[in-house]
């Protein structure tokens, strides 16, 4: 049988998909030169992996993601704790802006609790073969270790795997034949999970340090020493 191309539309029990267990849309007004924090209770029994997008237009036609250093204005903090998802919006645009915000929560690998159904928030389409769904090939929670010779290794060539480990380096063998897509979040010692985007940049102090080196067969992640990171949540998707 020919090898399945996971970069096409596929439903396959070997490759699960992310589950969105929290969704909220809201609107905030941010004054010129101001920084505004938006706190949204998520009511989940676990701390979700947060994601968000923001826009200046109600139809999200100019949507932005989390940006560590936004142009003019944008979200520079997206984080979740046991109670809330928090988004910080910075407005350096020179005028007061209305920001349309959509916030999402995904299930972390370590969660075993139940969650309320989210698809009832919509009566529209669930499946659409015109779109490629993002099949997960790996999700892991790696507790950071300074020693990069301490390696956590997993092979996902024959199906999705989860991994919880303490390591300085992660190797995921996938043999897809193309570079997969990676997403990651940091978790601090207080259990706060954040989107992040600050790589190491010597000689300044690295705020957070994770780097990915990829071939078409494997992903290597180096988890360096950083003061404010305890764990990394890493997800790899079979999308080029």
């Amino acid at each position, binding site marked *: 049988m020919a090898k399945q191309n996971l970069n096409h539309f596929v439903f396959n029990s070997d490759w699960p998909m992310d589950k969105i267990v929290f969704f909220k849309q809201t609107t905030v007004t941010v004054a010129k030169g101001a920084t505004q924090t938006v706190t949204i209770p998520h009511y989940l029994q676990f701390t979700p992996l947060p994601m968000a997008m923001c826009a200046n237009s109600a139809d999200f036609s100019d949507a932005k993601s989390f940006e560590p*250093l936004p142009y003019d204005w944008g979200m520079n903090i997206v984080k979740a704790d046991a109670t809330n998802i928090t988004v910080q919006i910075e407005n350096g645009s020179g005028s007061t802006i209305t920001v349309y915000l959509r916030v999402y929560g995904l299930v972390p690998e370590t969660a075993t609790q139940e969650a309320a159904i989210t698809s009832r928030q919509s009566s529209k389409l669930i499946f659409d073969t015109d779109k490629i769904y993002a099949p997960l090939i790996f999700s892991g929670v790696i507790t950071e270790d300074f020693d990069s010779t301490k390696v956590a290794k997993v092979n996902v060539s024959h199906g999705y795997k989860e991994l919880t480990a303490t390591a300085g*380096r992660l190797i995921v063998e996938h043999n897809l034949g193309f570079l997969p*897509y990676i997403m990651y979040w940091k978790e601090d010692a207080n259990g706060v999970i954040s989107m992040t985007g600050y790589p190491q940049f010597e000689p300044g102090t690295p705020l957070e340090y994770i780097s990915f080196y990829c071939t078409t067969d494997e992903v290597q992640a180096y988890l360096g020493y950083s003061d404010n990171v305890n764990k990394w949540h890493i997800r790899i998707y079979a999308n080029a």
Partner: protein
Amino acid sequence: MPERPNRFILNSDYMSWAQVTNTSVNVILPAGTTPAGSVDVITREIKLPTVKGGIPRYIISYQTTAYNMDTGQTETITENMPSSGMAAIFSSAHYPSWLITISRKDKDTLNVVAVVQGSYNMASAVSYPSITFKLTVSYLYPPNL
């Protein structure tokens, strides 16, 4: 009834992502010289429209050589900087390096800023080469919204 969401394979109780598009452009940063005691800053605007209602994901891919600890070989790899709007590109010799920031200027334009550091201590001016990296933008879209 609430369900245990972990190990979900295919369950219409929970929304999931779709990937609606995937666009790549090559970004060329010019050669230059870092000022002594400081860094150089390069700004580029890239015409790359956003997708209505989609969450953008960025990947910066840069071919370089690195030592593989498993094989003991020096090999060509792709430095892959996913998820966020910021990445660091290192030359094979580690310096010079380029700290890349991607942000959306408006619905049609991305803004790319590169901070170039010539050497570890920045004590003297250092010439740096032109580099080309691939910027890939894909969009996640909640299919039932």
